[in-house]
C-alpha cells in the first residue's frame, strides 16, 4: 500500500491494483488486538495499517468492490468505535456509494443534517454533506454550505480548494481565484496549486474583454506557471500552461499595439514560450519512449496535440 503515495491516484489501473490487495490488508487489520497482554504478541496496531485500510476503502469503492469496502468500514468501526467522527464520514461515504437512486441519497443527506444539528462542528460530516449536495447536482447549495464552512474553519485547505472548483464550475472565476489563493496561503509551496491558479488566471484573462484586465491576468498566469515549475522540475502542467499563457499574452500585446507598458517584455515572453515548447517536447519524448514508466497518458497526449497544433 506504500504505492498509494507514489502512483497517480487518478489512474484507474493503479486504483485497481490497490483494491486487489484487499484480502491481505483486511486480514492484517482483523488480527490486531489492543488489549494489553495480547497486544504484545499480535501484529502491531500502527497508524499506517489503519491509513492503509482507509485508502483501501477508497480504492474498493472506486473499483466497485463494495463488499471489501463494507469490510473496511466494519474493521474501522470495530477499532475506533462507530461514533468516531472520521469513521462516521467513511460509513456515510460507503452508504452514498451503494445508494440506489436519488431518493436514497436524499435520505442520507437528511441523516447528515440531523447529525450536524446535534453536533455542529462535526467536520467530516460537514464535508460529506457538501460533497453530497454537489453530487446531487445542487452546486449553488454546495457553495453556500462551503462558504459557511470556511467562515468557521478558515484554515481548511481541502474546503478552499473545493470551493474554488465549485466557483469555477459556475463561472465565477475571480471568486475561484480568491479561494485558491487562500489555499496557497496555507501551503505556499504546493506547486500544483500554483499551476492551478495559473490556469484560473488564464481563464480569467481569456474571458475578460478589457485589454488591461486581460494583460494583468495573463501576466499573473505566466508568473504562476513559472513559480510552479520553479518549485517542481519538469512539471508538465506548468510548462503546458506557460506555453499557452505566454503565447496568449504575446497576442494580447500585439493586438493592443500602442502604450507598451508591458510588465514582461515581449522578447522574454518569446523566450519563455520557446523554453516551454522545447521542454514539453523533451518530456513527451521521454514519456513515450520504450523505457517510459506508466505515467498519466492523457496528459502526454494533450501535450502532443498542443505541440502539433502550434507547429501546423
Amino acid at each position, binding site marked *: 500500500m506504500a504505492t498509494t503515495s507514489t502512483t497517480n491516484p487518478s489512474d484507474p489501473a493503479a486504483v485497481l491494483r490497490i483494491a486487489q490487495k484487499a484480502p491481505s490488508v483486511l486480514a492484517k487489520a482483523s488480527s490486531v488486538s*489492543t488489549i*494489553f497482554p495480547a*497486544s*504484545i504478541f499480535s501484529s*502491531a*496496531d*500502527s*497508524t499506517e495499517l*489503519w491509513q492503509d485500510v482507509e485508502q483501501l476503502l477508497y480504492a474498493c469503492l472506486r473499483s466497485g468492490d463494495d463488499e471489501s469496502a463494507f469490510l473496511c468500514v466494519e474493521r474501522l468501526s470495530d*477499532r*475506533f468505535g462507530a461514533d*468516531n*467522527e*472520521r*469513521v462516521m*464520514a467513511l460509513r456515510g461515504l460507503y452508504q452514498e456509494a451503494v445508494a440506489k437512486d436519488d431518493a436514497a441519497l436524499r435520505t442520507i443527506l437528511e441523516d447528515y443534517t440531523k447529525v450536524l444539528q446535534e453536533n*455542529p*462542528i462535526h*467536520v*467530516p460530516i460537514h464535508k460529506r454533506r457538501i460533497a453530497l449536495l454537489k453530487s446531487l447536482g445542487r452546486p449553488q447549495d454546495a457553495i453556500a454550505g462551503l462558504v459557511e464552512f470556511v*467562515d*468557521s*474553519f*478558515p*484554515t*481548511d485547505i*481541502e474546503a478552499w480548494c473545493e470551493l474554488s472548483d465549485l466557483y469555477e464550475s459556475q463561472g465565477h472565476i475571480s471568486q475561484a481565484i*480568491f479561494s485558491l*489563493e487562500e489555499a*496557497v*496561503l*496555507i501551503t*505556499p*509551496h504546493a506547486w500544483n496549486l500554483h499551476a492551478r491558479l495559473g490556469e484560473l488566471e488564464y481563464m480569467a484573462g481569456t474571458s475578460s474583454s478589457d485589454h488591461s484586465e486581460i494583460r494583468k491576468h495573463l501576466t*499573473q498566469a*505566466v*508568473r*504562476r506557471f*513559472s*513559480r510552479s*515549475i*520553479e518549485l517542481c522540475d519538469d512539471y508538465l502542467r506548468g510548462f503546458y500552461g506557460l506555453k499557452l499563457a505566454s503565447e496568449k499574452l504575446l497576442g494580447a500585446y500585439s493586438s493592443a499595439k500602442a502604450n507598451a507598458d508591458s510588465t*514582461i517584455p515581449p522578447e*522574454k515572453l518569446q*523566450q*519563455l514560450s*520557446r*523554453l516551454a515548447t522545447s*521542454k514539453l517536447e523533451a518530456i513527451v519524448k521521454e514519456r513515450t519512449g520504450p523505457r517510459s514508466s506508466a505515467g498519466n497518458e492523457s496528459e502526454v497526449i494533450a501535450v502532443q496535440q498542443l505541440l502539433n497544433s502550434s507547429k501546423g
Partner: protein
Amino acid sequence: MAVQGTEQVIHRDPALFYWILLPITIVMILTGVLRHYATVLLASPSKPPATLLESRERQALIRGINLRNNAAAAISSSAFNTRKEYLIDGYKKGTFLRGGAESRGQAAPNPMSDPAAMEGMMGMMKGNMAMMIPQTLIMSWINAFFAGFVILKLPFPLTIRFKSMLQSGVMTRDLDVRWVSSLSWYFLCLFGLQSVFIFILGNENSASQVAQQMAQANPGATANPFGPGQEPDKMFQAEAENLEVLEHWSVLDGAEDRLLQIYGS
C-alpha cells in the same frame, strides 16, 4: 582508605538478590507500564472547539499568522492588501471574537471560573501528577524497607565521582565505588528502563496515538492557539499590529526571470 590493588570482598546474602534487587526491578517495570496507561487515560487531547464561533475565533488567528508567514511566497500584492485590510479590520473590531464585536472590552473571565480554561490547566497538572505520585511513593517504599543495603557489584571499575550516584543511602567513606546500594538501583531503574518500556509498549507508545490520530480527520482543526488564561482579544490586537507593519513582497515578481535563469536560455 581502601587499599590500592586489593579487592574489597563483601559477602552478600543471596536473599538480597531475590528479595531486594528483583522486587525493585519488577516493581519499577510494572509501575512504568501502569503509568503509561494512566497517562493515556488521563490525557485529554487538545479539545476541539465546542461551537462554530469558537472554531472561527481560533482559526482566525491562525489565518492571520499564515498570511503573515506565507504571503510572500503565495500571493500578489493587491491580493495581500485586501486580505490584510480585512483581517486587521476584523481583529480591531473584534468580529472574530466568540461573542461577536459587542463582547470586546468585557473583563476576561477568570480562568478559575471558566471550565474550559480550567480543564487545560488540569490536564497539565494531571500529567505531572502521574509522574510524581508513583515516584514519591516508590521512593519512600524503598527508603522504608530497603535503605542501606548494598545489593550489587558492578563488574567494572569506576571513578570516585560515581560514589554519590551509586551509593546513596549508604554512608560509608571507604566502600569501593563498584558497590551499588538499593536506593541507587532504584534511580538507575527510573532513568534506564526507557528501552524496556519501548519494547513492552511499542515504539513511542503508539497504542495511544493511533486512536487520537484517527479521532481527528483534520489535525489543524483542533489546534488551539490560545493557551489557558490568554485573552483572544489581546492576541488579535497583537496580530493586527504584526500585520500592519508587514512589508509585502511577492515571490511571483520576477518568477519568469528566475525560470529563464534556471534553464539558462
